């Protein structure tokens, strides 16, 4: 399939990390892992309506242990050992500015909510989120999309690894402010969705508050083609949207055909598991032998009217069942269509079919299970089949590396939201709105135009500076006269040094050096020397002392050339090498060039 179906509806939830410290504590955006950690369990609890959210109940049934790695940018609040402090003012203002850019209506009073998430990605078991604005429109190159909600929420923990019943997370990302913009399902093609996502991202880039890193912008894509809404989580590359949606539409198409076939054959029946372990006592299948050695049993059940649909002719219902079982920690599902495989022969297959009394249209499923796992397995498979047969495929799915998706959990309901009782309602005052309005981002084109005009730099440089989130440094350092020079430092000199020295320096130190130079009327060569010293690890106070950045006067250079016996034929670069190695001061190459030339002229006269 190369095209999405005509009735496709696509909506986006774009999450953008802000580079303004954390949302509910005073920790910074970046940190390093520490040796300590702690482990926790999470329990589902009921929200304010007293009902438990289905996805939470589901999650708790997995009974997992979560291990958290402490980072230097995490405190008791991330560890869920202290109530949150007040909301990060800069993050709130940025969200208001974004809302204004899309003419979204801002709420007068903001309620912070707890969204229950008990997969361990939040130590508290909930994500703090607040609705800031609703309504408005995003105009992309190819489409327009309505906005349903703009909210400000905390990012979750980064997942490090998962092994058995233990999931390891790190605390560095937890609490980073995320602006979430949700659109109406107004897009029909992947390209339209990309253009809207780009426009959203660009507005935040223009403000210069987007955090660095590959996952600073992540989007969830809502997709429907008539079988309910599927929420595809965690699409970090925009370019992948097209493939992901094509794969998903094909999955849903094939799945609907398969379910229709089952219905046409007369529907299916309840599962009836039989213990067929005795058939495999002498089996050569490693998988089965291992299972039996671990004390597990081999169960089989008829899947009535599923013949040829589990894994044949493009039908993959088998994977749907296996994915659902994986979510409750059950692996080792084998079905008819796969055989012969795993050391199970055609003979075995037919023997099972006979023993199970398979009819013409039937298929079977085999599971290698502990006795105590049978009930949950039965429940999970029956629920999965019931859901698929209802032709409502709505659920939350995760993207895999090959751009296919995998079943994650049911869609979360509204009952997983309840108020954050530790934070009072936030009143959005007039002065806050005014300040937000002053900083409300224009479009990328407008901003490029304005910045190149303001600082006399090229449009290309302006765009680079915006995309690299360096506008604030340009603003802090440059004026109309030195705009070109500062722009070159930002777009060329610093990246070159980062490459040369293989390290990145804090921008406040870089800004510190350049500012010191501009304030003391020191030129480009002083700045470059200062940056070289910074990148080679010399502390700030040493760089800015002892007049190390002071340029040598023409007289001093002339004297030095004389004492060093520099010959006119020495050449420019050799001369510079000799001079720089004989002084701590800064040497302006243009002066040297001039001196060499005068010397030459004198000699030739």
């Amino acid at each position, binding site marked *: 399939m190369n095209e999405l179906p005509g009735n496709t509806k696509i909506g986006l939830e774009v999450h953008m990390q802000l580079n303004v410290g954390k949302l509910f504590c005073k920790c910074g955006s970046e940190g390093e892992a520490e040796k300590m950690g702690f482990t926790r369990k999470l*329990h589902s*609890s009921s929200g*304010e309506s*007293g009902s438990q959210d289905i996805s939470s109940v589901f999650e708790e049934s997995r009974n997992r242990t979560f291990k958290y790695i402490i980072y230097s940018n995490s405190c008791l609040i991330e560890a869920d050992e202290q109530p949150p402090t007040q909301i990060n003012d800069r993050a709130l203002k940025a969200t208001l500015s974004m809302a204004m850019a899309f003419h979204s*209506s801002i709420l*007068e009073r903001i*309620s912070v909510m707890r969204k229950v998430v008990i997969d361990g990605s939040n130590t*508290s078991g909930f994500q703090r989120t607040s609705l800031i604005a609703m309504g408005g429109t995003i105009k992309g190159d190819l489409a327009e999309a309505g906005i349903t*909600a703009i909210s400000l929420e905390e990012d979750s923990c980064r997942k490090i690894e998962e092994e058995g019943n233990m999931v390891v997370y790190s605390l560095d990302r937890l609490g980073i402010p995320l602006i979430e913009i949700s659109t109406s399902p107004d897009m029909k093609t992947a390209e339209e969705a990309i253009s809207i996502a780009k426009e959203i991202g660009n507005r935040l880039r223009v403000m210069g508050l987007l955090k660095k890193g590959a996952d600073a912008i992540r989007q969830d894509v809502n997709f429907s083609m008539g079988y309910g809404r599927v929420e595809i989580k965690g699409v970090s590359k925009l370019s992948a949207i097209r493939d992901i949606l094509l794969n998903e539409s094909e999955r849903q198409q094939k799945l609907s055909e398969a379910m229709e076939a089952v219905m046409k054959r007369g529907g299916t029946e309840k599962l009836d598991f039989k213990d067929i372990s005795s058939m495999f006592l002498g089996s050569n299948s490693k998988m089965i032998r291992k299972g039996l050695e671990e004390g597990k049993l081999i169960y089989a059940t008829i899947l009535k009217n599923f013949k040829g649909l589990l894994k044949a002719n493009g039908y993959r219902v088998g994977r749907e069942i296996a994915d659902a079982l994986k979510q409750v920690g059950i692996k080792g599902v084998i079905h008819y269509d796969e055989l012969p495989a795993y050391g199970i022969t055609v003979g075995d297959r037919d023997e099972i079919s006979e023993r199970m009394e398979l009819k013409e249209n039937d298929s079977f499923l085999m599971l290698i299970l502990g006795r105590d796992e049978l009930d949950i397995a039965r429940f999970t498979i029956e629920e999965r089949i019931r859901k698929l047969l209802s032709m409502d495929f709505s659920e939350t799915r995760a993207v895999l590396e090959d751009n296919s998706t995998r079943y994650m959990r049911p869609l979360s309901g509204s009952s997983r939201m309840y108020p954050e009782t530790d934070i009072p309602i936030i009143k959005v005052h007039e002065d806050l709105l005014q300040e937000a309005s002053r900083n409300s981002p224009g479009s990328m084109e407008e901003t490029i135009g304005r910045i190149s005009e303001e600082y006399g730099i090229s449009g290309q440089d302006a765009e680079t500076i915006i995309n690299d989130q360096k506008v604030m440094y340009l603003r802090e350092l440059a004026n109309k006269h030195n705009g070109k020079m500062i722009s070159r430092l930002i777009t060329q000199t610093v990246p070159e040094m980062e490459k040369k020295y293989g390290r990145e320096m804090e921008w406040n130190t870089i800004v510190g050096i350049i500012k010191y130079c501009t304030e003391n009327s020191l030129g480009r060569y002083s700045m470059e020397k200062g940056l070289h010293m910074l990148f080679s690890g010399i502390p700030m106070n040493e760089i800015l002392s002892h007049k190390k950045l002071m340029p040598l006067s023409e007289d001093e250079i002339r004297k030095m050339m004389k004492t060093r016996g520099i010959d006119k034929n020495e050449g420019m670069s050799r001369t510079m090498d000799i001079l720089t190695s004989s002084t701590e001061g800064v040497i302006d190459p243009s002066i040297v060039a001039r001196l060499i030339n005068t010397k030459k002229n004198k000699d030739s006269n």
Partner: protein
Amino acid sequence: MAESKKPEIGDLIEFTWEGQRFQGTLLSEDSVYSNIKLINGYNISIKLEDYKILERSITRTQEVKRDMKVLGKGKPISLITTGGTIVSRVDYKTGAVFPSLDMGELTSRFPYMEEKFSINRVDFSNILSENMEPDQWIQMAKLVDRELKRSEGVLISHGTDTMSYTASALSFMFEKQRGPIILVGSQRSSDRPSSDSYLNIEAAVGFSATDFGEVGIAMHHNSSDEKIDLIRGARSRKMHSTRRDAFKAIGEGPVGRFQDGLVNFIRPYIRRVEENTISTKLEKRVGMIYFYPGLSVEEMEKNLDGKRGVILIGTGLGHIAIKHLEAIKEKVKEGMKAVITTQCIFGTTNLDVYSTGRQMKGAGIMDCGNILPETAYVKMMYVLGNYDENRFPEMMRKNMRGEILEREEMGVFP
């Protein structure tokens, strides 16, 4: 369809806000703002103007199941509930905190409990621990006495703020006890998925089914949901305002530990006996005075007024400024008791080392080792309520319930 009547709390309404139509449930309102839960789960607080009622609220079926009083079929355990975080739920309409400990919910998380225990819930009172008074300690002691006669152990869910006071009070009032008395609290309320209450209660039930014949506190050992410490009541103290592992056994380690469903005792303890020996007499005219640089003599005098005894919380080894000694000496002559403790919390008092200490002794102030200030306060109430006055120094200095450590080991200081 459109109704002109005002919506009531719980009604599903449709309304217009900023030109957009929304549906939601009315949660609460004040004179200006209405608090509405939108279909997507978010609450918004807006001025409600153009609306219509779609569906009248059905009387909310969410009532807390409080009818279940006994659960399970094993060893009989009594669970006495008071207020506090551990049993708190938030009423999302009013913002008020109300107690709720659903026994079914508790045991459904620990299926083995129903087999092993028969838990009998007794509601003491819904009181936040900061509002507890000595009178409640006395009532509590009587209730525990009654429950211990029919149960193998008593579990008390308690707010953490004054849990150590209650634990100390029960320690002294029970000279001997038929079974464990375990106080348990929580630092994260049970309406949070990350609540520490589940594991704390599981462990407390475990401790209350042993032969521990003392009063103890069951709380997290560290920040992880792994180990729960059993801390001797009279040496326990809340040492952090928010952390799960806020409770520490000061100057000694925990007596026992719960991990992976099993109880292990680490330190010696007093075994349970066949009968309770209890005295609920407490002298309430006892006060605590925290010394600080700048504390005026007038203030000191005011605090001494009308007291039969005071616990002074001094600096270092147990010192207060000598300007206060005259007033104290006067009162002591009239029969008031004065005992010094230390703000350091860790370590002992000793009035023999510095001249100030010796002058304090001269004024009639006595030290009693490393007893904790709050424990000393409760103990003084008990000693003055139950013993002849001339036995006061002897009883205060005697280690009655593990409240005074005869020797402090290295390695128990954080």
